[in-house]
């Protein structure tokens, strides 16, 4: 056993293998009315987004609140927000797998699905944000009759590569982890559902040769996903940092954004998991133990954010650079002071509550904190993007941005799009990794003392 994250609250593994399969396959049965209501709500939000987007395509981006000097606002903020959400999923499914942390097992499928859908959502935003959405494919490097090639010195183009790679690899990872579990579902259901799950399981048999290659490949995918997750949010951060806008041009941006991404993602995991485990009756599988550990992860990343904020403020003063100093002064004390304080309070300060075990294991407090995290992290990106652009080098050109109905419509639509996919997934695929949970259950032994050391 390598690094094992331990906790006082150990998981209770009293279930048998058959019970694990039964309880998880049960989540795929005909859902209650509340589920349909939730899906309907998500689709409704999505429709708002679709209508808004249609109007934007028809009329152009003038509807959005863009106003010089602020030409990046809610769409880019929300783009970074959703990419960030995805990162916690990869962290939990890949990095904690490499560290062999036992508590990831019960929650990683939820977070991995969250990753894929969050990145699917994020990927729409650069397309929404560009003026002529129908030629977004000009971003791709391919020989064309225009004799034009994209500029690889621009971080916006690195984004194209980073986001598309991230979506591909995390989808592969999700599908890959699902194969044996879908096979387990296949063996439990009947009729047309058996046929569908049978096709989706690709005919998995669970032979020793399959398991051997599977475990190996899983390890490699995890090892590849780990640097990938670092690189993706780093590239996103460089969208800002590689310019020389005061407030954007910070060398710490890449690790700072990665930590923030994981912080926001774990926040979203709480928001999704706390209601979901009740709805799917999985309270005995996803326990205080998991929430306690997720909270510690939140505390760690929240503290790194605290550190990064402190570095930004200190170095802006230390550097003696007037423009940096002005930008960082205006964040908490300028026209949009409320957004600056929302960012500092919800991220740097609220996360510090998690030092207390009482709070870490109280689901109500965690849920409330998770809402603060979601709001705080959206505002962090908002503050970084909008406040920095508002106060550029020339005070004459300063300006404030006010979001419009089209900004909010697209934001609502993004939650609808994400929510719809996530809800559909949660009821169609095993949301807890059946095979890995079984691996953690001590096996019934033929010889009670034949306990192999591993």
């Amino acid at each position, binding site marked *: 056993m390598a690094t094992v994250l331990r906790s006082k609250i150990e998981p209770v593994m009293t279930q048998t293998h058959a019970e694990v399969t039964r309880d998880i396959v049960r989540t795929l049965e005909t859902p209650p009315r509340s589920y349909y209501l939730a899906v309907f709500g998500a689709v409704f939000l999505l429709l708002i987004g679709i209508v808004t987007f249609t109007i934007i395509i028809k009329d152009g981006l003038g509807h959005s609140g863009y106003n010089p000097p602020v030409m990046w606002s809610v769409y880019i903020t929300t783009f970074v927000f959703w990419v960030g959400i995805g990162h916690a999923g990869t962290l939990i499914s890949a990095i904690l797998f490499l560290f062999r942390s036992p508590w990831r097992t019960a929650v990683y499928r939820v977070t991995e699905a969250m990753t894929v859908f969050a990145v699917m959502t994020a990927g729409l935003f650069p397309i929404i944000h560009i003026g002529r959405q129908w030629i977004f494919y000009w971003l791709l490097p391919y020989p064309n009759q225009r004799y034009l090639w994209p500029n690889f010195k621009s971080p916006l183009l690195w984004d194209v590569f980073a986001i598309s790679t991230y979506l591909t690899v995390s989808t592969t990872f999700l599908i890959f982890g699902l194969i044996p579990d879908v096979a387990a579902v296949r063996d439990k259901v009947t009729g047309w559902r058996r046929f569908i799950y049978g096709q989706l399981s690709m005919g998995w048999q669970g032979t020793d040769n399959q398991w051997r290659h599977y475990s190996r490949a899983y390890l490699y995918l995890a090892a590849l996903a780990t640097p990938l997750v670092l690189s993706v949010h780093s590239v996103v951060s460089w969208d800002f940092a590689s310019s020389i806008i005061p407030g954007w041009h910070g060398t710490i941006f890449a690790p700072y954004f990665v930590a923030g991404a994981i912080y926001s993602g774990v926040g979203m995991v709480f928001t999704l998991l706390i209601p979901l485990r009740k709805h799917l009756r999985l309270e005995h599988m996803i326990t205080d133990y998991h929430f306690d550990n997720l909270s510690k992860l939140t505390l760690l990343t929240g503290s790194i954010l605290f550190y990064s904020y402190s570095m930004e403020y200190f170095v802006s003063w230390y550097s003696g650079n007037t423009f940096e100093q002005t930008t960082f002064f205006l964040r908490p004390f300028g026209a949009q002071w409320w957004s600056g304080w929302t960012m500092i309070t919800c991220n740097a300060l609220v996360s510090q509550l998690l030092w207390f075990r009482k709070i870490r294991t109280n689901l109500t407090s965690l849920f409330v904190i998770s809402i603060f995290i979601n709001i705080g992290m959206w505002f962090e990106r908002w503050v970084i993007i909008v406040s920095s652009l508002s106060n550029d080098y020339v005070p004459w050109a300063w300006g404030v941005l006010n979001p419009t109905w089209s900004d909010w419509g697209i934001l609502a639509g993004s939650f609808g799009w994400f929510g719809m996919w996530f809800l559909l997934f949660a009821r169609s695929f095993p949301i807890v990794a059946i095979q890995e949970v079984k691996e953690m259950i001590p096996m019934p032994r033929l010889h009670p003392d*034949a306990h192999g050391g591993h």
Partner: protein
Amino acid sequence: MKMSRGLLAEFASADALVAGVVALESHGYSQLETYTPFPVPGLERRLRLGHSRLPLLVFAGGVIGAILGYGIQWYADVRAYLLNSGGRPAHAVPAFIPATFEATILGAALTGFVALLIALRLPALWHPVFEVEGFESASVDRYWLAVGADDRLFDHNGTRAALDALGPLRVVPIPEMVA
């Protein structure tokens, strides 16, 4: 009864399965296959499976991805379309690293996934063992051991007796492919 493709024995525990594999291998059987709900530690070595070529393939995929990724950027920005971007050099090595890195990961991950499917012989939408009544338990909490009819030592009655001696829940023939 038609010719079978071999015999399947169902065990209640992983230890019984491992013990069965050890016993049959000591008899000289070589065409053994196990079906388990999760990887059972120790089986890999017992079944004398060879080394995996996966790591080399993944590494090669990454290298190819890196070369292609860097190559496209170099071709686009140095050869095909020179663009003065704030006076930075056309061959801007630091700026080419992020996309090269993403291409490396993409190449390695996709190679790994495809190589894995080939190694696992998936998708295989039908397999003889699926015809066996009750084989569904192999993905729940039962451990199955198959002896292939192509084994040198395979003899329907003799092998059946050898399997019975291992204390399985039951022994069943694997049906021949239905025409």
